[in-house]
């Protein structure tokens, strides 16, 4: 493997790992803020218990998100310095603004929130967690502004051999960012919702803290179901916009080799990327056109035609991304969403009819469904990032041109192995700590140990 491939692998591992934690941070910060709001409004200590319980799990997850986020920032300069030179004029600004507007706010007020339960008034303490929740979600906006430029460049000109910003507002209102931002934040809400209801299911199955977790279950289910419908809606709008912004990604998602009008939606097929054709297709006629244009007809460009257009525009080369990977990732994501809706609905029906305790099987399904949002998040990002290959910035810079020129294979191997090892160890530790606290249930303060070996 060369430095480009190794750097890609390293970046993919870091960002996938980073994004295991980020959606939960986004959603759970809001959920904890909601619980504390209920506590401040009702003065009911149960909500305080809930706030502290979910807050503790939030903190473990948050720490993991922060430390992997630093690695992300450094990667651009370390492995992708030619990209940073070419794009720094545009890409650096949202990153710096993310730090200035969001990271400072989030880290400072989180520190306050953890340590000031009895130092600040109830209301001020509540403001702290809302600021954390606001800042976390704001930071996702900035980084997605940066990412959206890579998918769909706007507001720039090519000058001095690099992309230079000419319209900051265009960058912020990139049509791509609206879909990406809403889909990301909403998937955070769903992830947090599923996290909450799955863990509540665990305690209800064990019949521990039943009252508390029944009440969390109810809040969590309403939260999750609203989130699921919203996330599907935003995903739909995002996919619709691809026909204008990234037709190649759209065609790859659907493994659509030939331009078609109306275009069918393929449920299953066997894809041969080398021969550029599919076999054994199960498809619903006209459905893709309908999904994209809201009417049963409309042309969807196929991969072969898009390849020809790209070659005319950018010169010889292969412009088609990994079609089977995109096709199946997209379907796995959608399937995970459908399963989440089903599980959440069944449990909601039972819990609001007070029949949940009679059907432990429903709770078990809910418990084992916890990986679903994580699967959907990871496959979703795979679609986004693999779908812009071979481009780093669509139409402007290829991935192979973005890598640092001075780093050696040995250096990247060392860092790749080092990061992967520490990520693995930390994942085990984080899951160990989280499970310990989940099992323990609400509120027991940390203790000093006697006779500690020092």
């Amino acid at each position, binding site marked *: 493997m060369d430095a480009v491939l190794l750097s890609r692998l390293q970046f993919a591992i870091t960002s996938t790992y980073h994004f295991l934690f980020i959606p939960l941070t986004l959603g759970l910060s809001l959920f904890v803020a909601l619980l504390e709001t209920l506590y401040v409004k009702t003065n009911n200590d149960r909500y305080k218990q809930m706030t502290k319980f979910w807050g503790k799990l939030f903190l473990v997850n948050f720490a993991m998100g922060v430390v992997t986020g630093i690695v992300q920032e*450094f990667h651009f300069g370390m492995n992708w310095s030619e990209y940073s030179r070419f794009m720094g004029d545009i890409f650096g600004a949202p990153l710096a603004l993310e730090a200035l507007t969001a990271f400072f706010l989030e880290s400072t007020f989180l520190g306050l929130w953890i340590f000031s339960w009895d130092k600040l008034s109830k209301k001020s303490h509540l403001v702290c967690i809302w600021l954390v929740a606001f800042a976390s979600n704001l930071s996702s906006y900035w980084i997605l502004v940066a990412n959206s430029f890579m998918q769909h460049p706007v507001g720039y000109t090519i000058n001095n051999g690099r992309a230079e910003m000419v319209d900051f507002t265009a960058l912020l209102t990139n049509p791509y960012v609206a879909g990406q931002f809403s889909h990301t934040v909403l998937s955070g809400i769903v992830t947090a919702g599923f996290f909450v209801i799955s863990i509540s299911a665990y305690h209800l199955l064990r019949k521990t803290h039943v009252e508390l977790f029944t009440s969390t279950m109810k809040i969590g289910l309403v939260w999750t179901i609203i989130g699921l419908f919203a996330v599907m809606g935003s995903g739909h709008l995002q996919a619709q916009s691809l026909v204008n912004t990234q037709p190649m990604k759209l065609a790859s998602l659907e493994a659509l080799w030939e331009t078609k009008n109306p275009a069918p939606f393929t449920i299953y097929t066997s894809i041969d990327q080398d021969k550029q054709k599919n076999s054994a297709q199960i498809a619903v006629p006209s459905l893709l056109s309908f999904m994209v244009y809201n009417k049963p007809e409309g042309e969807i460009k196929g991969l072969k035609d898009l390849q020809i257009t790209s070659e005319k525009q950018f010169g010889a080369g292969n412009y088609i991304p990994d079609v089977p990977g995109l096709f199946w990732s997209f379907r796995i994501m959608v399937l995970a969403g459908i399963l989440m809706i089903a599980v959440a609905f069944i449990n909601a029906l039972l819990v609001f009819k007070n029949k949940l305790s009679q059907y432990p099987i429903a709770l078990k399904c809910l418990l084992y469904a916890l990986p679903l949002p994580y699967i959907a998040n990871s496959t979703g990002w795979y679609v986004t990032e693999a779908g812009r290959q071979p481009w780093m910035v669509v139409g402007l810079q290829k991935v192979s041109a973005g890598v640092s020129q001075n780093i050696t294979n040995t250096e990247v191997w060392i860092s790749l192995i080092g990061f992967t090892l*520490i990520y693995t160890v930390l994942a085990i530790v984080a899951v160990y700590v989280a499970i310990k606290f989940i099992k323990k249930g609400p509120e027991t303060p940390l203790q000093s140990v006697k006779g500690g070996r020092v």
Partner: protein
Amino acid sequence: MDLNIIWFILITVLFIGFFFLEGFDYGVGILLPFLGKTDTERRIIINTIGPVWDGNEVWMITAGGALFAAFPHVYATMFSSFYLALFLMLLALIARGVTFEFRSKDDSPTWRNTWDWTLCISSAIPALLWGVAVTNLIQGIAINEKMIYVGTFFDLLTPYTVIGGLAFLFVFIFHGAMFLSLRVENSTMIENVRALSLKVGIVAAVSFVACMILTYTNTDLFASSLAAISLILAAILFVAGYAFAWLKKYTLGFIMSSLAIVLTTIAFFAGLFPRLMVSSLNPAWSLTIYNASSSVYTLQIMTVAALCLVPVVLIYQGWTYWVFRKRVTAKNLEY
């Protein structure tokens, strides 16, 4: 004054904030296993920086982001040149960041002891590496005409830069000790902090002066009178800080160690100006605030943003220190 100069100053300010704040965080982390005799003492020590360490670390992240936005070539060249050093630093920062969250979440003494040493080592690594990095910037590294580093990892480790690393490391430890002496209540602990700071302070002073002499012989920093005065003043104030620690005037000790760090940072940046990275191959190939900068448009936008936002950040971070002004006791420990 043009925007490039404003951004040079802003970057300097961000690094001043970073070294001043994370300086004592690193110092406290390094001192933890040496000063905490019991688990409660160790928890007290961790809790002195518990509420603020993450906010302090953001100064470094912001400095990185600001370099990316204002001087993308510096960001690109610096981060790719220091590849393995930054890899080590990242491993340390990852371990350090989760330590706070994980350390007290299990009652096993082995578990806690392991994390305590993790915090110590993972605080020492970045402290040392930043010293190596800063001295490399001014000494110059093998940057070619395309702004690309052509040396290796081991070329970055010269006697001068290693001494620079040690100077940063030990000054931060002393700084951390001064911070601790103001943040813990137990008088025995304060006495222990003082005893250790008097030992560490000597090593710090010696390595700082050695670094200063090597800076004089190896770099052109003293060509700038602002840099020269700042660096010499920093050394004098550091020694004054040591004297105050000896006299048990800890507030003054902390003020002096803080000023020494601030002035050292000013000295190195003033010595660099208008360069940000010096090329050892050809002075014309150095990265400057002009040949490495973003477009005027981007700098304008970022200037407005930074001038509005940095004061706000300073206000609320300052307020945090006010909220946590009381010394930390064994009661109500969070971490």
